[in-house]
């Protein structure tokens, strides 16, 4: 089954990329734009068919490799 791991900069941690994107969008004339944050998403195809176990596996992968928990937080969605 498919699992999505979304990795975002932690709240309070500087996100230079998000800042630059926000700036560029405003420059293009898009209005009413507040904060912009940029993160990663990793789509995993797992052989596991049990949603709970798939989620647990993805969480382990996120903690071990996909996210740098010093500066990033992650969430897992089972599709």
């Amino acid at each position, binding site marked *: 089954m498919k699992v999505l791991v979304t990795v975002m900069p932690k709240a309070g941690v500087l996100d230079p*990329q998000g800042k*630059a*994107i926000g700036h*560029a969008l405003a420059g293009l004339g898009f209005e009413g734009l507040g904060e912009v944050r*940029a993160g990663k998403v990793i789509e995993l195809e797992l052989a596991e068919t049990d949603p709970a176990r798939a989620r647990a596996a993805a969480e382990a992968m996120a903690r071990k490799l996909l996210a740098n928990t010093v500066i990033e937080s992650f969430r897992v969605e089972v599709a």
Partner: protein
Amino acid sequence: MQAGIVLFPGTNRERDMALALQRATGRRPAMLWHRDTALPAGTDLVVLPGGFSYGDYLRCGAMAAQSPIMRAIRAFADRGGHVLGVCNGFQMLTEAGLLPGALLRNATLRFLSMDCHLRVERADTPYTGRFQRGQVFRATMAHGDGNYFADDATLDRLEGEGLVALRYATPAGEATPEANRNGSARNIAGILSPNLRVLGLMPHPENQVDPQIDGTDGLPLFESLAEALAAA
């Protein structure tokens, strides 16, 4: 020849490029600003130099491609103007749709700063007149996202129309996988527009124009331009 080099926030190889153009033409190029909406009258070459415009955030060259000056550059290219995009400048040209394809992350997933060898695929262009067809020259590459990608139909069209300008090759001129460090499709290092006046390439020939620094392997490219544009 009257050249203009465009400065974007984060551009960092504009001085290298200015030195190369000056060496080839004896004339100092103008520095243009990304917010300008028109090119100086008489401009016959626009250069989009290397660097990290907008920090390379989101996608390399994506934000620069939306700059006010790009509109003027597009119109200039449509009128048959010469546009050279190197490294980040090549990325901008693809992001702006002036050249087809895209530059993905290097296949090694690492920044690659090293010499490479480029095979000249045709010598009848404003950029390559001083080279021979099939000639190989050394250049420096310095990029994280130089992996040229286009779908097969586009690649076939580029090849069919002779728009591949330069390929990564061995010093002996073979376009092998080993010579293609960033993983570019069909070893493509540089491509041309159909009128041969827009060139985008990843490596930096502007870093090999001075015998005191690192040889003059890249100088013919700028001399070719000077010649082509002096004649124009």
